């Protein structure tokens, strides 16, 4: 489907001999609430990890808004590889003969309290640097260039589809075993989630330039608004680690929403919640959709799943066994079998 926001195409995840997810395809329509359900160990969280770049799918691919979110092979990559190659080459060539070069370019030319011939020094330095013959100059240059360029290239190729790249493409998530930043306050947790929208660079940060302070103030205001949205505004300055469990889940949702994602992936948001909290959560998830954010969730609470989902995908033993609206899934014999077991006949 071309209109889908997330398109999982034939994803297989193998860990050694174990196939956790086997040839799963599913599409998430923009603006929908989609649920992924299945018994424990069915591969739901593994699928989430494959979507968000925590794992690299063994086979298949995941498209977000029709394209594969990964670092593109661009001019910047080529530039980086060349810069690393040249830089390392010069570094190695200078290092292996640093004393000779120093002697020629500085010590031999310097007379106490006489003006120093800078231009001549540079000339002498370059002549000495490139006049070292095969072993003094060219082999170090060559080895350095290969080492630097190859190293830079390998790093690029192995970090093409890391979670930060996928998150940068507008996919936010929460975790099954809550992963907040426990020693930061609630506001700061949310502001971290906002990071991809912030522009403050190192220089602005270190000198506390007005632009940095302004951005910080507006980011905190936005964060407070989000905390209001999930109902935690009164605890904004507490440490996240001190929150009760249910609140931690809601804070995680606020943090994920902070980046203004296209889609938010919720991994068992209702786990450990009591019935009232669960009802609140359902209201919250609907409100998230109202804001224009697509929702994908993994959930075991059937009341939540059946109550809010537009579309449900069922996994069992890593394979997708059914897909449909809540009504269809409720009456699907394969799903009933997966959850309740098969009825023994006569």
């Amino acid at each position, binding site marked *: 489907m071309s209109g889908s926001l997330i398109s999982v195409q034939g994803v297989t995840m193998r860990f050694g001999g174990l196939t956790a997810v086997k040839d799963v395809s599913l599409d998430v329509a923009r603006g929908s609430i989609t649920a992924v359900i299945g018994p424990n160990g069915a591969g739901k969280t593994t699928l989430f990890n494959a979507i*968000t770049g*925590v794992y690299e799918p063994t086979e298949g691919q995941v498209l977000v808004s029709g394209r594969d979110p990964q670092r593109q092979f661009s001019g910047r990559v080529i530039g980086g590889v060349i810069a690393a190659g040249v830089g390392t080459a010069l*570094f190695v060539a200078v290092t292996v003969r*640093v*004393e000779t070069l*120093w*002697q020629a370019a*500085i*010590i031999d*030319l*310097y007379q*106490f309290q006489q003006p*120093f011939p800078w231009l001549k*020094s540079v000339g002498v330095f370059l002549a000495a640097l490139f006049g070292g013959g095969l072993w003094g100059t060219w082999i170090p240059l060559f080895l350095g260039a290969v080492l630097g360029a190859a*190293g830079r290239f390998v*790093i690029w190729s192995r*970090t093409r589809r*890391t*979670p*930060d790249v996928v*998150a*940068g493409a507008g996919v*936010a*998530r929460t*975790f099954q075993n809550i*992963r*907040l*930043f*426990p*020693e*930061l*306050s609630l*506001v*700061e947790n949310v*502001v*971290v*989630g906002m*990071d*991809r929208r*912030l522009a*403050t660079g*190192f220089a*602005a*940060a*270190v*000198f*506390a330039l007005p632009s*940095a*302070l302004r*951005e*910080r103030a507006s980011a*905190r205001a936005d964060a407070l608004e989000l905390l209001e949205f999930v109902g935690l505004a009164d605890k904004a*300055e*507490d*440490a996240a680690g*001190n929150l009760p469990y249910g609140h931690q889940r809601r804070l995680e949702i606020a*943090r994920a929403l902070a*980046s203004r994602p296209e889609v938010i992936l919720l991994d068992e948001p209702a786990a450990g919640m009591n019935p009232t909290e669960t009802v609140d959560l359902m209201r919250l998830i609907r409100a998230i959709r109202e804001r224009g954010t697509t929702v994908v969730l993994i959930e075991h609470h059937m009341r939540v799943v059946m109550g809010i989902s537009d579309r449900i995908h069922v996994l069992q033993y890593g394979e997708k066994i059914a897909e449909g609206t809540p009504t269809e899934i409720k009456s699907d014999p394969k799903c009933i079998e997966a959850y309740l077991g098969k009825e023994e006949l006569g």
Partner: protein
Amino acid sequence: MSRTGTSGARFSPMTRGQLAVLGLLALTPLLDLVFPSLQLSGPMRTVIVYAILALGLNIVVGWTGLLNLGIAAFMAIGAYAFAILTSEVYPFQVGFWWGIVLAGVIGALAGWLLGAPTLRLRGDYLAIVTLGFGEIVQDGLKNLPAITKGTEGINPLPEPMLPLVEVSGETPARWFFIYLAVLALVVFLCRNLEFSRMGRQWFAVREDELAARCMAIEPDKAKLKAFAAGAALAALSGALYASHLSSTGEPSNYDFQISILALCIVIVGGIASITGVLVGAIVVVGFSNVLLPVVTQAMQRAGLSSTGNVLASPDNYKYLIFGLALVLMMRYRPDGIVHARKAVRK
């Protein structure tokens, strides 16, 4: 509930604690007026030098959660860069202020060069790399006598001078105040970083690298910046150290013990807290470099100790007291004198 927060939502350039510690330090020359025989301004400058070193280490260890066991190597790089750039032995002679600035820049570059290929290593492995780097730098300096003068050290080096104004007859008090001003500037910059997007990224990476990654933060880049910033401060402290000694001293002045001393300052004072690190430097370095010599002198004058009697010289108890204090600290106040790690970042 929130424990002792360091600052509210509004940015302030320094906390009351930081101002108080800096103010206390500023009283040192007054003590010299009251007790002229003590001459504290000189030794107290080493307290400032180590405070800057430990603030640099705190960025890496306390804020970003990377164990760096080779911070002394960057101090050495800073000291030698300052010496080469300012000494009359070489043609550069850029003067004190350009010397310390350029030393910091060179330190940052060195940190970046070391960090770029190695920061993807995790935990202990990175610690081993930094440990090895510390040894390599020392050996390198020892074995390049044409540049570093080997074990003689490069000397003499310029004393700190006030910019723009020519004042004859420099006094230890004036030098002390120049050092203190540099420290105040470093505290200000560190605090800016702590409360900026940069600091927030570092904290997030420290608390949960994967979660930070899923918030579109690139941990590798954040770590590299932390490493370079820490190295820059360490190099700055090295430059101030060399200026204080008026010599680089020998390369083994910057050995593993200095790295551990810096780590002790951070841990004893209060990891991740600027105020804590300042207090730690005063307590640890103040004890070994200021208090012990004063006590020793006093005892010698009173005839209580002599060089002949090993047991009667307080200097020989230095490491005994040190070790005991560390054990007691770990038992009764594992978060350091200033409980900052647990303080909520607001």
